[in-house]
């Protein structure tokens, strides 16, 4: 199949113990681009072996968290591979690679950040939906702009946006930090609709992660 993504756009997939889903994700994404970077975040299962189907694999010897894995992937893409932009995807097959082209389209329209936004009324569990909406409302109250579906990990950013975001969160808090810094630095962003897909409700963000996210919101308000 034709590679529809531009060769200077890299897809970064952080993976932690995702040996079950990663092969499926890689084979689907390969239909759109070969420029795939998998960051194995210290997995203890066969993630590293199955990740070798990707063009680039970087391995954290210890599990650091999603934020750190994304940062490693971005540094490889921007500093060593001269990427123009990156698209961040989760490794648990919750993101539809068919939507990669929507991200590229938005990047070509000179947006610095493109946020994949799910339809919250479809399929999303109630508790996750409440945490999701609350986070967006709090960001609006505290920072003055509404960023929808903050926990969504499907997003694209340019090198300039990456340099401005310069996140420090090493865990799932990275999504919130990106949202807040997008507002603070007034990055030119847009949203693209993405599918809501859940395979394993025990993975991804939990209610406890949402509580931690709220604590982080207060910290960001005090520090930024």
């Amino acid at each position: 199949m034709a590679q529809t993504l531009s060769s200077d756009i890299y897809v970064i997939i952080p993976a932690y113990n995702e040996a079950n889903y990663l092969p499926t994700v890689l084979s689907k994404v390969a239909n759109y681009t070969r420029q795939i970077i998998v960051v194995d975040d210290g997995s203890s299962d066969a993630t590293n072996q199955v990740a070798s189907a990707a063009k680039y694999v970087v391995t954290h010897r210890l599990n650091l968290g999603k934020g750190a894995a994304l940062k490693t992937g971005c540094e490889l893409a921007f500093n060593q591979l001269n990427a123009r932009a990156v698209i961040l995807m989760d490794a648990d097959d919750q993101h539809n690679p068919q939507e990669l082209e929507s991200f590229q389209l938005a990047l070509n329209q000179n947006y610095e950040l493109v946020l994949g936004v799910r339809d919250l009324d479809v399929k999303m569990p109630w508790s996750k939906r409440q945490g999701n909406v609350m986070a967006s409302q709090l960001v609006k109250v505290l920072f003055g702009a509404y960023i929808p579906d903050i926990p969504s990990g499907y997003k694209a950013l340019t090198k300039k946006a990456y340099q401005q975001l310069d996140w420090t969160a090493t865990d799932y808090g990275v999504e919130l930090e990106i949202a807040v810094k997008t507002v603070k630095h007034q990055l030119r962003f847009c949203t693209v609709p993405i599918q809501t897909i859940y395979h394993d409700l025990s993975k991804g963000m939990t209610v406890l992660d949402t509580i931690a996210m709220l604590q982080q919101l207060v910290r960001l308000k005090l520090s930024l």
Partner: protein
Amino acid sequence: MTIFQILAAIFALSMMYVVSIHGKKKTLSPTEVGFWLSLWTLFIVIALFPNLLMGISQALLFNRVFDLLVVAALMILTILVFASYFRSRESHKRVERLVRQLALDEKKMPRKSLS
């Protein structure tokens, strides 16, 4: 002597025992062992003879020596928690930098085609 004083002394003696074990295992340096043993000895002395602090307690307008000890203990605990929080955060940052740098140095690049 009250039961509380006896319990405090026993607690301090067990802590001194723990310190000496760490000293033997070399997880604490001789200086650190000396520091902690002196601290726990002081704790025992104050626990058994609280009136030694009566003067300080009255100067700081505490009604009882016990109140002074509780406030002092809370202050020390706060300082220790604060210091260990920053130390662990710094360690975490260093580990993160190291792990990420190693990952980038050892990245797997695509194989070049022979054709």
